[in-house]
């Protein structure tokens, strides 16, 4: 439960903030570029829905979580390493890898998808608020766009990516934390490195999963 709190619940505010504002900006940018009279008005809602489901929520939110959750995990485990808390676990006969990392991996693969669904909903609401408050579109047109060409397999694709990204973030940051050597400076370096490496691996995994699932 601590891990759920730590990985899932504590991330809700940042996810909510990012999702609402980026959803709003996506819809405004799309609306501002819709010059052609041949394109129906509901295209704005459709593009917002597609962008959010396919890329923004699973990938961008995962990159943000790599920074927030990943650095937290690396520094927590790294501090436990340099203060001999991991040695203490080992001497007690506890499998420290299982004890420290497995619950975090489980929490991430279960709760990252929940966060991403939450992010999708808030991003679409953000888009709605931006368009309707700015009087750029009616509620009916925006909702019609959101519902147009909706494909459930896109949600499956997004959640598959999210599970993979959650696993990548926790395993990479745990690795850098667990094997840190030295002092507090090295814990800081490990934390930074874990974020950089997780982000790069997420981008590569994003490409591979997209190639495998969408094409």
């Amino acid at each position, binding site marked *: 439960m*601590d891990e759920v709190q730590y990985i899932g619940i504590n991330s809700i505010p940042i996810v909510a903030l990012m999702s609402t504002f980026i959803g709003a900006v996506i819809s405004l940018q799309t609306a501002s570029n819709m010059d052609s009279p041949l394109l129906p008005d509901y295209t704005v809602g459709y593009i917002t829905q597609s962008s959010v489901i396919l890329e923004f929520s699973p990938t961008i939110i995962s990159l943000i979580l790599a920074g927030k959750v990943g650095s937290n995990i690396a520094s927590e485990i790294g501090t436990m390493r340099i203060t001999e808390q991991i040695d203490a676990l*080992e*001497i007690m*006969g506890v499998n420290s890898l299982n004890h420290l990392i497995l619950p975090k991996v489980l929490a991430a693969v279960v709760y990252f998808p929940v966060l991403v669904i939450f992010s999708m909903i808030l991003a679409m609401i953000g888009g709605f608020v931006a368009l309707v408050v700015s009087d750029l579109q009616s509620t009916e047109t925006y909702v019609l766009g959101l519902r147009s060409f909706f494909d459930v397999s896109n949600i499956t694709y997004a959640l598959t990516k999210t599970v993979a990204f959650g696993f990548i973030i926790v395993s990479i940051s745990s690795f850098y934390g667990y094997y840190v050597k030295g002092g507090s400076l090295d814990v800081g370096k490990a934390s930074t490195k874990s974020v950089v490496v997780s982000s790069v691996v997420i981008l590569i995994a994003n490409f591979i999963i997209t190639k495998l699932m969408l094409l």
Partner: protein
Amino acid sequence: MISVRNVNKTFGKQQVLFDVSANFEPGRVNLIIGQSGQGKSVLAKSMVGLHEVDSGQILFDGRDFTAMDKSDRAEIRQEIGMLFQGSALFDSMTVEENIKFPLSMFTKMTKKEMQERVDFCLERVNLQGRNALYPSECSGGMQKRVGIARAIAMNPKYLFCDEPNSGLDPKTAIVIDSLIKDITYEYGITTIVITHDMNSVMEIGDNVIFIHQGKKWWEGDRHSIITTDNPEIEAFVFASEFMKKIRSSLKERIK
């Protein structure tokens, strides 16, 4: 009894331990002393399996720890208590949770039994009523005492203490030394203490092993350390003028 037989340990190209052999008797406080970087911590960490030895044997009451697989080692480790230099308390847990942790992991005690055991251990180290404090709210001496309480929670047969007095004032250091000595005698534990502290050597050293250049250089008790003519011991133990004066006066008394 813990027996170390012909242990060698290398890190990369640097050999740290050279053919070290020693016996550590139960019910006695066994001290490993030596200058920094001479291999005493490596020896202790090798004994508990935090470092793998290159060759040699480590026997816990005849059971060869070096030849065991992970699961067998885990069983022996449940018989080991360790007090770390920095206490190594789990900082996300309270004092009570720290002591309960090994009990909840490895015993089938009921909640009530665990609570009784925690209270007993805290009372043993004179920290009764401090259950709800977090390690960050404890002083250095209190952290060491909680570390001892956690180490004895499982009724260990073997107790390892890595520089238990480092960072403590002399008065608190004496309290910690007394605790280690009392617990050792009371429960017949095989206790191994790594220390630089000459006060500890003179107070609690039933058996003292001096490690120098990765080798067992000298072995004796706290009385014979005063009279030995071993030059390396003299250079280490009686480095200051003050200690030299103490030594000569003690030598006179012994004569």
